[in-house]
Every structure is written in C-alpha cells, then in structure tokens.
C-alpha cells in the first residue's frame, strides 16, 4: 500500500476534521460552550448549496457563498439564543441546549430539503499520478480551501481587534468588559465566524463524501477527538490534531485490521494524552473544567446524619410509595416504559454522582451500560438459573474493574480530555462485541433471558418492574450512603480544591480512579437492568448518542442529585415516548423542549427546588412581617 497514497487520503479527511474542529474551538474558547450543533449547521449549509446547484442551477461559487451565509446566520441565531434567552445557564447547560438545537435543525433540514443524502459536484475531477499514488484534484482543492480558511481564521484571531476581543473574552469576561469589549457583539461575531467555518466544512464534505446529517455529526465527534489530540482550545492544536487523526486513521485502515480501526486510533490518542495530558499543543491554562461541578451550581454534600431528619425520611417514603403504587395508577404508557425509566435512572445516578461530585463527565457510559447488559445476557444464558442479584453483582464488579483500569490509564487527564478518553470505551466495546460473535451474537446481539429471583423466573412486566424498582431503591440508598461517607468528602475536596486536598493527605489520583470505578460499576448495574427490561442487547444499542442523551438527563435533573437522576431519566424516556406518534416531529419538539426547560429552570431540578423553597420562605417571611405590624407591602 502506497504510503504517499494513504498520507494524501489522511490529509484530506484531516483537513476536514481540522476545519470543523476549529469552529468548535473558537466558540469554546470564547464562551466555554461545546457546540454540538456544529455538525447540523454544516449539514444545513451543505443542503443549501446542493439544492441551489441542483434545483436552481446556481453556479458553484454563488451557491457556496449563500451556503456560508446561511450557516453563519444559523450559528448567530444559536449564539443569540444562548446569550440572550438563556443567560443564566451554565456553559455545560448551554452545551446541552446546542444538542437540542442540533436535533431540531436536523428535523428542519428533512422538512426543508430532503431526508436523502445529496452530493455537491466536485470542482476538479482531474487526477494526478505520482508513482502508484493517485492524487485527486478535488482532494487538493479541499486541502487548499481548508488551509486558506484556517490561515484566515488564525490571522483574524491573532492580528485583528476582533480577534483580540475574542481572546480577551476567553481569558476573563469581567476584565474584558472593563476594557470596553462588547461581550454580546463579540459573542455573536464568534458564533458567526465559527458557524461559517462549519458551513464551509459542510460544503467540502458534501462534495468529497456526501451531504448527510449523520455524516456531519460523525465528523463532528471525530473532530472532538482530533481537538483533544492536538490540544483543546488551541487553534494550532485543532489543525495538528485534525491532520494527525486523519493520517492515523488512514494508515490503520490501510495496513491494519479494519475491524479494530477505531480501537487502534483511540489507543494512539490515549498514548499521546498519557505523555501530553493536554494534547500536543494544548496548555493547562486552557483546560476549563467544563464538565466539572466546580461552578456556582456545584452540588453540596448531604448534611451528615440528615438521613435521620424527618424531611429526608418523608421524601424517601413518598418516593418509595410512588414507585410501588405506580403500576396501579392509570398511565398513558405501558408499564415497561417505567421499567426503562428506572433502569435509565440507575445509569443516570452513576453519571450524576461522577459529574456532580467528582467533577468530570464521561462520554463512555453507554459502553459500560452495554457491557452490563451483555453480562446479564451471557451470565443468564451460560449459567442457567443464576440468581439475578448475582448477575447484578457480576455486572457491577466487572464494569467497575474496567472503569478502574481506564481511570488508571487516564490518571493525568481531566475535563474534556478525560471525556474524549472515555469515548474510546464506546468504540472498543462495540468492536470487541462485533468480533466475539460466539459470545455476543455479533451484530445481531444476544437475548437476555428473564431474571431469576429465589429460583423463580420473572416473566411478566409487573414482576420485572418491581425487580427493577427494588434494585433502583437499593442503589439510591447505597449512593446516598456513599455521599455521606468519607469517600464523598474526598471527591468534593478533589473537585473544589485539588491542591488543598492533596495537602490534606487525600490521594487525589487514586480517588479519581475510585470515583470512575464506582461510577462505572453503577453504570454496569444499570446496564444489567436495562438489558433485562429490553430482553436483548446488541453492540449498537447504547452508543455515543445514548451517552450524550444520558448527560442531558443529568443536566436536566441536576448533577449530583439522586431525585434529579430520576427526573432527568423521566425527561429523556417519557418525552420521546409521548412524541412517538407525532409523525417525525419528535426531534424538533424534543429539541425545543430542552430549550424551554432551561429557560424555565436553568440549573435543572435542584434550581426548581431551590427557587420553590426561596419562594415559600419569602412568603413566610412576608406573613411574619405583616403579623408584626409592618404596613409595607411584601412581594
């Protein structure tokens, strides 16, 4: 296989990764928001260009310019939504809103354009032969355009007043304001520039591969990996990471086993990160603990012995009573929906604790759920009559050990770097499951037999519901106890003040490993429950999109909150089921619902609870003051 050929292939795709990634970096550096809608914006621009060329007969350059404008304006609209309609949300919540925007935009593209792939004509259909290598003219065009765009962006950021304003905003918003930077305008300009870059990448991808929402979303995820490799937050890193990732994937595909291509590529990324924890060109100062709980809404630990307080006990009793009584209350959904809800809530607890108290977030929890479900299926199949609690134990311990291993490997990583490292789990688990077909059933997957309790197989929906409910209640109590233990205090100390924690004798690195291991174990526990409810597991059932949906559930419910995990799981399970008969509107309405949730209750469930408490206290204070004879009206 020609090295030159593979290098060329890798540079072309790498240039596209870099272009997409640079748009993400620009927004992230200025606003701390991870823009999950960059792919959808690129697809919108690409569909615009394809339609203008194919149906309206516009010349290629004109269509591309229009597409760039459309993409930029779409991004500006998103930026304005985040800045002016959702000003009180955290960057992580804004990131989740961009995911909702992406879903809505995908629906809009299907309605406005088509649901089929399209293609944008290539500019140069010539081929240049260098030895045995074939260098396509259009590929050179893609590289050249990407290089010009990247260079122009670099010049703008480093050599213009706008770029200076953007960089100052990324350093410190308050100081930037003091020096006269118009935060609103600079933010809008940032979104416009980043989205124009995304639009350009969409047009190029549309001519080099195809115009397709899924393709652009996949390229976006791969660009995240490229950014981490190059150094998240670094414009040079975006370019270097994109090119390196493209070349690495080319060579692995060309020379290695395609069956484990992603595993090899992510192994390369992990090796780089172990040596350079902030990527090749990244700097520690640029690592914002975006996914961490170290924000003004970081959850506090439960008060010691608060479980003895009447309010806590009352809340527990009410919750348990609601869960027990649910099957007997008329519902618009089948009972299995609530089994799925509680099993999903169990997984949400795992991520919620990790995000809220350990201060990190993970994109690999779907893989841990998959593993837990496979354990449930394989154990029940191979060890006929095995008791379900034992299945849960095996799933929990197995995934905890895997989590400990990954945690140990990624010891020096944090924030988005750690999150991308966990993404490796998703690809590795999928690829291994596809290959170990005798065990996993390969692509088709494997059935998960009915759970057995005290020698009795539980086959009805009601039996399975109570089994899942009981398991969840035990998990919730265990998690609650964990937070009240010394372990919970270590985690909060590491989250809020790692240096001080280390000075006080807390083994920071070891506790991070423990935190991820515990979270992984709980995720495996939830996965075994989900596999049991669904009665089947396949390698693609809980992929990256599912992991992102889980993060969404945690944000909506409030990270660090066990009741919040249930609330968030209810949102991501019940809302799509409620929308399932809306003839394809589900994406749009779900995306809009997300925005509405964060307008009404930024901060998720804890914010709702806290505002309700404040309102009640204010009313009580008002009554007290008027009782003492005050003539002032009290709000």
């Amino acid at each position, binding site marked *: 296989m*020609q090295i030159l*050929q593979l290098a060329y*292939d*890798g540079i072309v795709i790498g240039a596209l990764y870099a272009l997409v990634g640079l748009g993400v970096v620009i927004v992230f550096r200025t606003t701390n928001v991870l823009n999950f809608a960059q792919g959808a914006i690129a697809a919108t621009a690409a569909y615009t260009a394809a339609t203008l060329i194919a149906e309206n007969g516009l010349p290629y350059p004109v269509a591309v310019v229009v597409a760039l404008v459309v993409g930029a304006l779409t991004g500006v609209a998103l930026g304005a939504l985040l800045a002016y*309609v959702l000003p009180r949300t955290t960057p992580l919540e804004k990131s989740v809103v961009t995911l909702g925007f992406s*879903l809505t935009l995908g*629906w809009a593209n*299907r309605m406005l354009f*088509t*649901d*089929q792939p399209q*293609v944008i004509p290539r500019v140069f259909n010539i081929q240049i032969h260098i030895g045995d290598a*074939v260098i396509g003219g259009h590929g050179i065009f893609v590289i050249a355009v990407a290089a010009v765009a990247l260079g122009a962006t670099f010049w703008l950021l480093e050599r213009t007043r706008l770029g200076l304003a953007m960089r100052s905003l990324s350093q410190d918003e308050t100081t930037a304001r003091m020096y006269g930077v118009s935060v609103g305008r600079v933010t809008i300009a940032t979104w416009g520039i980043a989205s124009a870059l995304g639009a350009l990448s969409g047009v190029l991808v549309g001519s080099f*591969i*195809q115009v397709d929402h*899924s393709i652009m*979303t996949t390229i976006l995820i*791969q660009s995240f990996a490229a950014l981490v490799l190059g150094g998240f937050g670094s414009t040079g890193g975006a370019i270097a990471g994109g090119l390196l990732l*493209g070349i690495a*994937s*080319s*060579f692995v*595909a*060309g020379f290695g086993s*395609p*069956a484990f*291509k992603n595993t090899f590529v992510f192994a390369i990324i992990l090796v780089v990160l172990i040596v350079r924890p902030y990527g090749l060109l990244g700097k520690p100062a640029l690592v914002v603990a975006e996914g961490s709980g170290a924000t003004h809404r970081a959850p506090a630990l439960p008060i010691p012995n608060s479980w003895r307080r009447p309010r806590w006990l009352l809340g527990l009793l009410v919750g348990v009573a609601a869960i027990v009584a649910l099957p007997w209350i008329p519902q618009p*959904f*089948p009972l*299995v*929906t609530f089994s*799925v809800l509680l099993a*999903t809530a169990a997984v949400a607890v795992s991520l919620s604790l990790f995000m809220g108290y350990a201060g990190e977030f993970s994109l690999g929890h779907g893989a841990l759920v998959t593993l837990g479900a496979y354990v449930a299926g394989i154990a029940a199949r191979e060890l006929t009559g095995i008791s379900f609690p034992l299945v849960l134990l095996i799933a929990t311990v197995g995934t905890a050990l895997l989590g400990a291993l990954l945690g140990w490997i990624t010891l020096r990583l944090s924030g988005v770097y750690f999150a991308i490292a966990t993404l490796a789990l998703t690809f590795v688990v999928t*690829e291994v499951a*596809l290959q170990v077909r005798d065990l996993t059933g*390969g*692509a*088709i*997957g494997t*059935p998960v037999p009915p759970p057995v309790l005290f020698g009795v197989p539980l086959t009805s929906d009601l039996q399975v519901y109570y089994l899942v409910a009981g398991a969840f209640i035990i998990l919730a109590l265990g998690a609650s106890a964990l937070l009240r233990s010394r372990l919970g205090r270590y985690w909060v100390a590491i989250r809020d003040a790692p240096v001080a924690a280390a000075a006080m004798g807390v083994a920071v690195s070891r506790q991070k490993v423990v935190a991820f291991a515990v979270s992984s174990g709980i995720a495996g526990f939830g996965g075994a429950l989900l596999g049991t*409810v669904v*009665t*089947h597991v396949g390698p*693609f*059932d809980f992929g990256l999109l*599912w992991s992102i949906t889980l993060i969404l559930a945690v944000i909506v419910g409030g990270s660090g909150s066990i009741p919040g995990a249930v609330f968030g799981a209810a949102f991501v399970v019940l809302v*799509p089921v409620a*929308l*399932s*008969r*809306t*003839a*394809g*509107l*589900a*994406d749009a*309405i779900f995306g809009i*619902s997300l925005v*509405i949730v964060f*307008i009404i209750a930024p901060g998720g469930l804890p914010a709702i609870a806290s505002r309700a408490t404040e309102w009640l206290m204010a009313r009580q204070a008002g009554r007290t003051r008027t009782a003492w004879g005050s003539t002032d009206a009290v709000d």
Partner: protein
Amino acid sequence: MANETRGRSNWHRTATLMSAICVLAAACSSTTPTPQPTATPQTSTAPTAAPSPTPPEPVQGISESGEISLGAWIAQSGPLAIAANIGNGAQAYLDTVNDAGGVNGYTFKFTVIDDGADPTKTVVAAKQLWEDDKVFALFQPYGSGPFAAVKQYIAENDIPTLFPGANPDLYFTIGEAPPANIFGYLPPYSALVDQLVTWAANDLGVKKLAVVHTNEAFGQAGIDSANALAESLGIEIVDDIGYDATETNYAPFGRRVAESGADATLVWGIPGSPQIITAAVDSGYTGKWLLNEAFRGGFFLGQIAELAGVAGNSYLNLYQLQAFSDDPALDDFKSVFADKYPDGDPMYALAGWTAAEMLVKAVEEATADGSPLTWESLQATFLKWRNVNIAAAVGISYTEQQHIGALKAQILRLDAAGWTALTDFEFMPGLEELAGN
C-alpha cells in the same frame, strides 16, 4: 431596578411557559387519536361487495365497521429517518383503497410509532401497539436491531406480524418450520449473496473475491455467506474489508480493494460504499463489482453510474421490481406517490406500497366468499399463494415450510443507459425446494 429586572425575567418566563403549553398542545394535536378498544364483533354495516356475517368471536384489531387496525414501529427521526418513506408508501396505497370504499367491507388504519431505531423505545412501541392500540397485526415493523429486541415478545404472544423490515435470519431459519404468526417479504440476505456470488463464479469466471462490508447485521451477512460459499465455488476471498457504518474516511478501504488483486468485489455495505468504489476505481481497480440493493437507484446509483470502470462492469440482484422499472404494475404507485409525497424517496416507499398491496389482496381473497376476516383466514390465504406477482413483488410463495415470500431474484448489469436484466427472476439457492407446487 431590581424589580424591573425581576419583572422582565418574570415576563420572560411567563412567555416561555405559554410557549411550552403551545408546543405541548401542538404535539398532542398532531398525535394520532388514541384508538378505541376494538375486538368487537363485526356487523354487516355498509359492505361494498359481499356482506360479512357476524363472526363467532371478536377479532382484535377489527372494529364493528370493518376497520382493520395495523401498527408498526418505523424510525421517523434520528439517523434512520429515511425509513419513514416505507410507512408513507404503505399509507399512500391504503389511502387509495380506503378512498375507494375499502375492500369487501374492510378499510385499513395504519398507526406508525417512531422508535428512532432505539430498542428501548421499540419495546415500548411494541407493547403500545399490541396491548393498548390492540392492532390486528404488526405491519412492516422496521429495523433488525429493534426487531431483535422484541422478537421474544412477538413469539410469546403469537403476534401476527406481516412483512417485517428486518434481517429475515432473525425470524426464519431455512430448513426449520417457520413461526406461524410471521409472514415475511424480504429474502434472507444470505440467499441474495449466494445467488449473486454463485452467478459471478459460474458466469463471470470469478476466482478471487474481495468483500467490502459494514460491521453490522447486513454487512456481516455478506461476508459470512461469501466465506461459506467460497470453497464450494472454488473462490478465494482475497480480502475481507469491514468498516464501521459511522466511518468517514472511506478512501483507504477503496485503496485496499485496488491492491487486493480481486477479480470481483462484493460490496455489502451501504454507507460510504460509493466513496469506496470511487477510491478503488481511482486507484486503478478494474475488476467486477457485485453490488447490493442500495445501488438500484437514487443517490447511490448517481454516485457511481458515471465512473469509468463501473458501467458495464457492475452487477446486482433484485428480488422485486424497482421504481425505475417500466413495468405497468408500478404505474399507480408512480403517479400516486409522486402526487402525495413529491419529495419522498420512491425506492423505500415502493417497498411499503407493495407490502400494503399484498395485504389488501390477501384480505380481498380471504373475504371473497363473505367470510369474516380472521388471522387464521388470512394465514390460510397466504399459504395458497404460489408464484404470485403483486405490484413490485415477483414470484411470491408461502408454504408450511417457509414464510419468506420472495424466493426469486434477477441479476442485472449496469450499462450506460441504466440497469439491464441479464436473467429472469430465478429462485435463489436453497429456496426452490421450499416454493411448494
């Protein structure tokens, strides 16, 4: 100032709450009405042709007025949203039947639940359709992964299931008695590969075969079948190139094809396959192409049709007529679907239309003598079909030994003008003996 700010914030939130209510109202109003429980005996109200006597017992999913309730889960959102066209095609045909007054007193209601191809949603959808909506049958439920998740539930409850859009290997095993409650339409992917590769070995003299396939159910069927056949046909599999359906860097796989030395390459994957073919041709590959059904028209065909070394060199086999066919059996489909769904995908939609026409024909035959429709009478009607042609379906047969349906396929070659049939519809390997008399 604080009060003004709070006032603006309160107005903001109120406006949002009102918007939320509107959005919810929109969602609720656009949902299909909750079906009323059916399972009531038919009466002889307004039959069009033959009067229907009251059946001895109620039939789930058939109302007093003779409305047959059908249900399916089909991805209408998410990455597989293009599958929605299957439901649209079926709905378009059923609407024409209903508008004409139904058939023998029966009309059709088709409920589609969007599961986004997520198995956790599919299990909910399956139970909603069977237990809440009480449909007569599942009709074209879509997706291999989703079907695998509910396969056990369907089997345990003996749910009538017609023409699932899933890998038939999930519910049929050739040589074993088929489940009585499932009648298919898709042929096993393995049978399609068997026919195409066998023909390539015998008619094209292929000795070295490269296989490009996605690493999921469809693609795995391709490589598994090719591996199983290779020795018996005297073929060497020179390269097994599997790739993720979420891959974006396709060119290296095409380069591997060019370097493999293969006489022919079996392309048994859908995403990215045009790019792999393009890269292989660019790198000098001159062997034959054995393609899958996705290349029958539309986007995929457009991507490769004008590549040098593809036209005149590419083959595929199809188990049904395709939207590009001039066969008059498709005239109604072309005019009706284009009118109702001008931007819809006709290739997916034709599958839905054909399945709907097959169902309606079966209902018509089952009730031609005035007997009320039951699942048993519908089964009996299907089992009488031998070599039946309906819409795009060719040579459909069902027997006690197989409920596959589509047992035949024809080989076509891509020429400059388009696809040219090289053979008639012929039995795929291993299926002729199951066709019955």
